[in-house]
C-alpha cells in the first residue's frame, strides 16, 4: 500500500502543515521510522526537515510527556 504522501499526491512538505506532520511523529514527539511511515527515502528526508523547522518555530513540540 502506498504511503500517505503518494496517496494524496503531495509533492512538497511544508513546515506549516502541522496536521500533516503530526502523522509522522509518535505521541512522544519523535519522528517515526521509515518502517512505520512507509515513505520513500526522499520523502522521509523532506518530512524530517519540515518537522525540525516546525519544532524550531514552536509549531510542534521537541518532546511530549
Amino acid at each position, binding site marked *: 500500500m502506498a504511503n500517505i504522501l503518494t496517496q494524496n499526491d503531495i509533492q512538497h*512538505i511544508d513546515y*506549516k502543515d502541522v496536521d500533516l506532520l503530526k502523522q509522522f511523529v509518535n505521541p512522544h514527539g519523535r519522528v517515526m521510522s521509515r518502517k512505520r511511515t512507509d515513505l520513500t527515502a526522499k520523502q522521509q528526508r523532506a518530512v524530517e526537515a519540515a518537522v525540525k523547522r516546525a519544532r524550531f518555530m*514552536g*509549531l510542534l513540540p521537541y518532546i511530549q510527556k
Partner: protein
Amino acid sequence: MAEEINAAANTSENEVVLRIYEVGYHIIPTVLEENVEKVVGDIRTVIEKAGGSFIAEGAPAMTRLAYEMEHQDGDKRSYFDKAYFGWIKFEAPIASAAALEEFLKTNVSFLRHIIFQTVREETRAKIKAPTLREVKRTDTIKSSPRRTEEASAPVSEVDLDKALLDITE
C-alpha cells in the same frame, strides 16, 4: 582570447542571481494588533530595498506555541507561549537573505524567525490526509439527536410550587 575570458567573467559577476526564499516569523504578543501590520511592513521594506519581489504571503495570526520561548529586550528577559505567526515567500538576490536575517535579529519585536530556500510552487498540502483519530471518531461516537428547545411559556407561581412539592415529596 584573454579579453574574451575577462569579459565573460565580468558578465557573470554582474549577473544578479535570484533565489526563492521563505521567511517565517513570530512577533511578540505584547505588540498591539493594530501595530502588527506595521512590523510586517518593515520586513517587506527590507526585502524590496534588496531588490526582492513577493510571491506569496501568510498574514500574521495569534498562534499558541508548542513550548515557551525566551525573548530578550536589553536586560529584560521574558517568556512567551503565544505569538503572531506569519510568513512571506519571496524572490530576491542572495545578499538580501543575509540583510533580512540581520534585520530580524536586531528588531526586538520578533520572537523568532526562520529563512530558508524553497520552491516557487505552492508547498502547502491541499488535501488533508485522513488521520487515524478521525476514523476512530466516526466509528465510536454516534450522533445523538439534539434536544429540541422546549417552548418557554410563562410559568405561574402555583405551577412552580406544585412541581417543587412533587419533587420533595
